[in-house]
């Protein structure tokens, strides 16, 4: 890893959906407080790898996982680990904004509430703080009681970012967080991710190489469920060591 200090360490991770072998022996490190991009063509297992990091893969029927994922040295697949603790630590921003069926305020307050914050004043502060961090506060501060579904798609995605921040995660896992957004909203989210990396370890999936170049410090390239190459972004993008990485980056396939 060189100059990077790893926070997440993936060791020989294999994921099967019933008979289908989606991730094959993945071993990779994800640096702390940096942005890591998982790139690769569609269907190569990018999203599965991302969702293995907070065990959301558990929700898929017929899933089988082997190998280890260490977060701060603790294996999250260990049976004695409380999965809700892992997920609290690893916030998720989904591809399509997915606000909960409640008000804007309650969307943010939901997470802190389930994790035991009862004090109304404190909740109010958390909501304001997180909406500010996601640059949404000014647009919604006068209509916090309105349904979250009334917001535009771009606003909804920032709401989801604010909601993820509200449970005080250490990492943010983003699954093509801008693919459903218009260019302006997409730029907004990108800018926020760059701001947030001083406090959070960010992992994001993208199939837009330009976006990976703009944001990533570290890159993991997957192809057909295998890890082909990983390393600092400059190196992977300028001097890839594997010919398949080179071909992908030069746009030979995708």
């Amino acid at each position, binding site marked *: 890893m060189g100059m990077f200090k790893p926070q997440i360490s993936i060791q020989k991770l294999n994921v099967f959906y019933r008979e289908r072998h989606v991730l094959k022996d993945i071993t990779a490190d994800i640096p702390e407080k940096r942005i890591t991009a998982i790139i690769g063509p569609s269907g190569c297992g990018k999203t599965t790898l991302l969702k293995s990091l*907070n065990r*959301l893969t558990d*929700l898929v*029927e017929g899933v089988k996982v082997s190998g280890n994922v260490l977060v701060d040295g603790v294996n999250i697949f260990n049976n004695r680990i409380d999965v*809700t*603790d*892992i*997920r*609290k630590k690893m*916030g*998720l921003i*989904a591809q*399509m904004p*997915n*606000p*909960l*069926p*409640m*008000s804007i305020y309650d969307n943010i307050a*939901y*997470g802190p509430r*389930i*994790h035991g914050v009862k004090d109304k004043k404190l909740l109010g502060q958390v909501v304001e703080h997180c909406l500010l961090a996601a640059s949404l506060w000014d647009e919604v501060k006068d209509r916090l009681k309105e*349904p*979250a*579904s009334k917001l535009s798609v771009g606003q909804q995605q920032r709401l*989801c970012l604010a*909601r*993820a921040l509200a*449970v005080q995660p250490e990492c943010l896992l983003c699954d093509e967080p801008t693919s459903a957004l218009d260019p302006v909203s997409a730029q907004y989210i990108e800018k926020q991710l760059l701001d947030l990396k001083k406090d959070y370890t960010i992992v994001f999936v993208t199939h837009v190489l330009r976006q990976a170049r703009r944001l990533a410090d570290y890159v993991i390239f997957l192809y057909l469920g295998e890890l082909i190459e990983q390393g600092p972004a400059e190196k992977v993008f300028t001097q890839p060591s594997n010919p398949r990485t080179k071909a992908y980056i030069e746009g030979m396939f995708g």
Partner: protein
Amino acid sequence: MNKRKLEEAFFKGLMLLSISIVVGSLLAVFAVVILKGLPALSLSMLTQTPRGGYYLGKEGGILNAIIGSLYLAGGATALAFLLSLPIALYINEYAGKSRFASFTRLSLDVSWGIPSIAYGAFAFIIMLYLGARASLLWGIITVTLLVLPIMTRAIDEVIKMFPFKLREASYALGSTRLETALKVVTRQALPGILTAVLLAFGRGIGDAASVLFTAGYTDSVPTSLFDPVATLPLAVFFQLGTPIPEVQQRAYASGVILLVLVLLLSIVSRLSTRKLMKYVIK
């Protein structure tokens, strides 16, 4: 005209015909009941219990049956809800696509098909065994059995539609299954749950056969769960069964009252559903 256009016209006509039969018979039922019942409807029918000689055409009302029906259907709906929400949440959020879930659904579908008189007879046998008398409590228990499958499957169908992306959103924040089920799934499904509850209430308030042996019949308003209780469908039945024309007319008037009760309820539910829909994610 070519064959495809003819086909299109024929099947469209068939669909519209079916719809007009349904709507037409609804209107016909309304018309008959209202036309025959409205002239006999009076304030005293709503505000008084039957006095001596009511069933011979003298004065009095069916307040006993109105209150009785509301108690009975209300109690049964509440009790059925307490049971059906946990069942529906379990088979969707906990049991997944397991055999246990499909077995539960199958049992509910079979119970849905059981005629209400069979529930009445079943409860009656148990009452005989326990030496219990017909009462509001037993009426409620019987009607609960009757409406439980209807309510549960209706709630189940709504919860089945719960979007995966919301489930993911909730779990990703570190929710437990229970928190997801109670705070997110139920919230999203609330309008549908309300519809299911009202469907069950409508079925419960309208059923005569299940309460025939189990709730008894009385001319007074029940004051405890152990009193026998009159119901509107049975009031219609008994009044229609007399040879006196005035009393038969009152049977239709009782029908009007039952209709209006159910109608009022569906209007209220429509309005509140619209309000609850506000937060639902499409």
